[in-house]
């Protein structure tokens, strides 16, 4: 499996656009999932099925916790897309003309390819038609030879050729290309100085702790918790825990425990609460977790 996975050079760049952390490269997404247990959430519409909202595709949005963890472990760095774009995107001068030339070339190449494909298709079709015509002609020679028939054929033929002639010059020109990204995703072009600090919610220590324990996490809003905690890849396992983080000195409402426990047990998970002990920061694991299940349900 590992041999088939495409090699992704670390550190990976995570684009920050409008306060969201996005990844646009499918190789990076699979790499993060396989090597770093970071799942993310697909947020893009699938081009093949644009009218639904259940299944989504690229880009992959990362939770701030995930992005922060990746940055802290040196796997990735945050790149502010807007500033990068403003600084590096050629808006004027000869770099701009170079860039436009490049875009034009891409369009030209695409249109050529299309043209070639059409040509070859036409060739094969014509060859087929010629073969069939020859057979028909030989049959016709045996029966009769009708002049009117030939006339109509030639008329249609000329008609077709003229229409083709009018379409050829447009197809010969380059296509208009709309670039989807303003820079390539390979990290070599950028220095990792463009790192920015990620603002994480207070549940971040719990996230780090559970991630360190080898769990996979998904955002848990669906189940009314901070994280859904999976023992393996979420595609293969059901979640084991609904994790909710509390501050160490925070008062926990009993009703919340009742509701969380009830919900967790109902969906065959355990309700997990955890928090970071501020007094034991120097210890290896300042986070403690407890799981709650509802009895008699």
């Amino acid at each position, binding site marked *: 499996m590992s041999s088939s996975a495409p090699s992704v050079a670390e550190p990976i760049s995570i684009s920050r656009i409008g306060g969201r952390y996005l990844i646009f490269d499918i190789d990076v997404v699979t790499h993060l999932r396989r090597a770093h247990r970071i799942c993310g959430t697909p947020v893009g519409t699938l081009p093949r099925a644009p009218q639904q909202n259940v299944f989504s595709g690229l880009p992959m949005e990362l939770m701030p916790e995930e992005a922060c963890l990746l940055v802290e472990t040196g796997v990735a760095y945050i790149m502010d897309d807007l500033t990068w774009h403003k600084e590096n995107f050629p808006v004027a001068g000869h770099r701009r003309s170079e860039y436009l030339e490049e875009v034009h070339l891409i369009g030209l190449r695409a249109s050529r390819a299309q043209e070639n494909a059409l040509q070859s298709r036409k060739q094969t079709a014509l060859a087929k038609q010629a073969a069939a015509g020859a057979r028909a002609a030989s049959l016709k020679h045996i029966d009769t030879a009708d002049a009117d028939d030939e006339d109509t054929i030639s008329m249609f033929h000329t008609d077709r050729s003229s229409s083709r002639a009018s379409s050829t010059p447009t197809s010969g020109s380059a296509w208009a290309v709309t670039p989807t990204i303003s820079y390539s995703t390979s990290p070599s072009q950028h220095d990792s100085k463009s790192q920015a600090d990620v603002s994480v919610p207070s549940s971040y220590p719990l996230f780090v702790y559970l991630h360190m324990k080898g769990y996979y996490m998904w955002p848990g809003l669906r189940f*009314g*918790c901070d994280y859904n905690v999976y023992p*393996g890849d979420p595609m293969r396992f059901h979640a084991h825990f609904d994790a*909710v983080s509390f501050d160490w000195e925070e008062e926990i409402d009993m*009703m919340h425990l009742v*509701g*969380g426990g009830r*919900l967790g047990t109902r969906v065959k998970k355990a309700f997990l609460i955890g928090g970071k002990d501020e007094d034991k920061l120097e210890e290896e694991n300042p986070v403690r977790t407890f799981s709650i299940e509802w009895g008699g349900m």
Partner: protein
Amino acid sequence: MASNEHSEHSAVLASPKQPHKSNMNHRQRMDQLYSLPAPLRTFPLPTFIPHNPLSLLYLAYVWISQTLNAPSSNPSPLHQGWWSPETRSIHITDDRSVLALWEQGFYGKGTLSRSEPNWVDREKKRLGAEKGATQSTAEENTLQRRRIRQETKWERARKERNVIDQTRLSEAALEAASFSAAAATMPENVPEICTYSDSSLPASDLEDIAVLVSKASQNPPVGPLELLALPNSLIDLATSLCSGMGLDLSVLPTRNSKSSVCPAPVGPIELLSLPNSAGELLAAQTQMTGHDKSFRAATSSIGLLLGLEVKIVHGTLHITDAEAKVDNAQAKDMQELEYEISNRSVSTVETVQGSSPPETAASMYEHPATPMIKHQKSVRFSPTIEKTTFLPSEPASLGLATSTKAEEEPLAIVNREHFQLTAQESFFLTFALGVLEVLDLVTKNAIPIKELFEIFRRHSSFPPMSTASTSPDDEFMTNYVVYHHFRSLGWCVRGGAKFSCDYMLYQRGPPFTHAEFALLIIPSYTDAYWSKDALLQNYVNRKQARSWTWFHCLNRVITMAKKTLVLVYVDIPKPLSVTEENSMGLDKIFGRYKVREFTVKRWSRDRER
């Protein structure tokens, strides 16, 4: 609704004019029992029949007598409850009050029951005191439902298991057939295939062997008994198997080595690193503790177990083959071990065949549960010690059944249960209906309403405040306002702690329907006073802060129980001073609050298109 008799106590009992109890169906009986929606009497005038002039006379008589000598709609004497500051509730011990408050409006709950105080009934039934009692309590119904549901689940599991076994058998038969066909076509060329065709069940990889091991040693858990009979650890498995074979296991590993066999799985990594089969475990153990003597003993005992298993499936070679594919180094270890295994397996199989009737070892493995049942734990409770040693074949409780049968006289069961009212309920009964008086435990006197109000407000926070509370948003105030609001609209309001909301609304009462709505109380600080300065704004923000995850959790809990979530906003007025409040009177104080309701429903555009 109305009972024609003027006697105070008639409402509880069946009036003679109504049909006899045995002729009524369940619904009619319920309607009669819970005919009054509030613990109050009403005295409607008799109907006027136009073609019967006597009815007019009767009507006039009743009207005149009621205006001259107005009957009290409150029960006489009033129901009495004791204020208990420790539990922050009102205790009621009088049977008349308990019955009346439960049946007429469903107030309060029994301390030893789910809601209706029926501990005595259950206890009587449990002790067999009431032979003829057929009506079962709500708790018993629930238990029965749960039992049936459990049985259905086990039945389903058993059926699924059967299907799996069937497919597996047919697949094995198919595979065997294809192998024998292949062997027939090329007889001498491939010797490995010949060994396959020897065995009836060709095991191609370790997983299959593992399945066979587990299948041979344990029935799949399709019932609670099988689940209990499952071994708790691999060592247990080895012990039970070996004891089932009639072997002496003096070489069983000690507790120390047991813990090091495989650590308890507390994370997914540990879970994944657990051995998948006995073979892997064996390999791991030899790698880990090659020299230790006690571990040698452990390995050999499990190796012995594995050797036996291997003998059954005739797949000794294939274990090592499969290992070699996975890991060469491990396979070397396995090969070293395999010598030991095969040597030992021969000897053990011999001993088995010597000691047991001429069955194969495999057939013995099919039923390991039969000897194991004897070793199940049973706890015996007995007031006297009849004997100190017990045979495993004896029933769990021997003396108990006979001793209860011996004393046939009816048991006098003391009612240990009392009835509890929350502060809001009792204040509604006292202040709004006037049917309850709350007594002080120390002075044994009734607490006046104004003082009761103050006590409840002080005790609404924990620990209770020492001075009188004047904050208009304490829990008692908001909750009482909501309670009073919905009670006066005719809903039966009960606590909603088990669904993690504040109150539940029943259409008529718990015996009739499930709760339809769940109320969540949110204080709303709309008054201009609360946005006066930053300090107050901070306070308000803290009081109103709710997290989305929490709200989602709550909403999911409530919709899964098929209820509708209602957000009840209580507009909090600006606080008053003590003197102002004292001069106002309770109705004026409560009149300052406003209640707004919103139902909440999660709407998902994909699901509800």
